């Protein structure tokens, strides 16, 4: 395998969790709910996936367990913000803090146990194409799922009636309620979809990216995900592109550290975070376009009159 292919492969591995979690958050935010707890849901997914794989011996059970972990954990957020109309910003922070704590406690017995790596599934014929084949078609299930998610969510949002309803709720929950669209129910589902995606992204971390359990292994990826959704102006394909851009930055700084360019490694490690800030500034400085793209009821509480 060439150096180039190897780099491409690592970029894909680094980008996949970002894309998956961001797609989930995109759906949540399109419904008008701002869930800042992605980091917490992701780390819960990671520990749940690791535990599931250890107990069953199968990484696929691990994936299911990671998805379930993220989705169930997100229900806490949904209950607080949708049923009890608690502040979404504060509750999202709470979810992250609790997730980091709880995952640390659950995962304590898994520290420094060798993990189970999710195997690759080569796709017949396609995987034999030079360069593209080994890079794109000899991948693991979660990568294929990430692509399917982007295509599926794009179709759902812009082609299906249910997606139209979801966008309508995000634009004006009051109007949607007046038309008889189930605002709260849809939002519960959207939050749980976001949680499931964050959980799957976490599973990728503990089953593929670094197949082991390390405390705080999400390392701020959940927060970068939130920035990605803003960067993508709430559009699935832009999330995909943005995810790969960030993945590439992460990998390139790692390679730069390995090469020892005389730049201290800490400064290179800052790159993904600094890049996030720069990208956010570029995207948001135009108030007009930001206003046009942001779901109008994002982060606002909804209490139906009865």
């Amino acid at each position: 395998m060439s150096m180039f292919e190897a780099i491409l492969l690592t970029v894909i591995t680094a980008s996949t969790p970002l894309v998956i979690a961001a797609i989930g958050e995109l759906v949540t935010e399109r419904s008008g709910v701002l869930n800042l707890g992605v980091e917490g849901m992701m780390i819960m997914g990671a520990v749940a996936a690791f535990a599931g794989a250890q107990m069953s011996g199968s990484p696929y059970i691990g994936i299911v367990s990671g998805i379930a972990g993220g989705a169930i954990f997100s229900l806490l957020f949904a209950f607080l913000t949708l049923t009890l109309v608690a502040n979404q910003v504060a509750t999202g922070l709470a979810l992250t803090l609790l997730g980091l704590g709880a995952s640390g406690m659950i995962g304590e017995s898994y520290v420094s146990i060798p993990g189970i790596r999710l195997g690759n599934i080569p796709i017949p014929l396609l995987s034999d194409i030079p360069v593209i084949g080994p890079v794109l078609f000899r991948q693991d299930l979660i990568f294929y799922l990430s692509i399917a998610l982007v295509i599926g969510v794009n179709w759902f949002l812009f082609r299906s009636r249910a997606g139209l309803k979801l966008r309508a709720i995000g634009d004006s929950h009051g109007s949607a309620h007046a038309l008889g669209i189930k605002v709260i129910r849809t939002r519960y589902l959207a939050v749980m979809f976001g949680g499931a995606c964050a959980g799957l992204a976490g599973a990728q971390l503990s089953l593929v990216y670094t197949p082991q359990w390390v405390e705080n292994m999400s390392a701020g990826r959940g927060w970068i995900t939130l920035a990605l959704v803003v960067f993508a102006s709430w559009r699935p394909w832009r999330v995909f592109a943005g995810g790969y851009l960030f993945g590439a930055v992460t990998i390139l700084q790692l390679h730069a550290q390995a090469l020892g360019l005389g730049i201290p490694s800490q400064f290179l490690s800052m790159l993904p975070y600094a890049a996030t800030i720069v990208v956010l500034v570029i995207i948001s400085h135009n108030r007009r376009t930001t206003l046009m793209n942001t779901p109008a009821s994002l982060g606002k509480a909804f209490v139906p009159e009865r």
Partner: protein
Amino acid sequence: MHIELEKRAAMSPAFSILSPLLALALTLVFGAIMFAMLGKDPVAAMSAIFVEPLLETWSLHELAIKAAPLILMGVGLAVCYRSNNWNIGAEGQFTIGAITGSYLPIVFYDWHSPLVLPLMLLLGALGGALFAAIPAMLKAHFNTNEILTSLMLVYIAQLFLDWLIRGAWRDPKGFNFPVSRDFAPEAVLPAIWEESGRAHWAFIFAIVAAGLTWFMMRYTLKGFEITVLGQSERAGRFAGFSSKKMIWFGFLFSGALAGLAGICEVSGSINHLQPAISPGYGFTAIIVAFLGRLNPLGIVASGLVLGLTYLGGEAAQLSIGVSDKVTRVFQGLLLFFVLSCDTLIYYKIRITWTRMRGGVA
């Protein structure tokens, strides 16, 4: 089951006081259940965490040490949140405050003067404020989401500290360990009551900051401005207040207090710089602010409670053999319960057990 909310005409004053207490009680109950599930005696565990640390003088001192940064940062964050600005990067401002404050005792190690300590505190607060100015500037001028930028800066601050300690500021006689040299005695924040225990002046600063902030919020036009802009930017503009200036004020205020907390922690408790200087105080301070209902006096109480969870977590690890990770879980649970109980202040909650609604045949 069906839960319905009905908005109260005005905030319920009873629940404003009861809700944090209720949240605390629920956390204790949940904690007890959690320990029971882990196979520990819940009563013994809860007592080890929440009662025993309060029974000995030395551990009361430790409590004051842990509570001081939480209260300092919690008070700053409360003001910031009241104005509807979401600084969640206090951990980063704490780190930078620790660095800028340590500049004098590390770089000018041989300068001995009674001025060193006050200057350190000043530089610490200044450093924290300047670091908080970054998200403030980005929000005020580029409309950039302050939650994400202030958080990203936490990682950057920690990496910067790591670089300093492993590089320029490493103790030349430290056997290559990543620590700075120990501060000279006049650069160490003195204990409040030397004979009794370790607790140092940071706790006094915290109480004073809380008291002054309480006065500002309650009696001055500035406090009024903060409250108005936090509740309605539009009404604030009608009152002639500037939400842009408030972004700066909120961030500089909370950043300065976080920076002060940082240098106090390093100077008073650790006595040198090292890569890890905070067990997540900056994030816990967010919980402190909310549990104190964003009221500076309430924050003194909630800072002590959360300080206790740190202390109790360490104690429980030794006495009953549970992980000190329970501290974080307790803190997270506490914030969840605080947020849910706050609903009671603004809404009446009705739970109906069937979907039938009265009257309509």
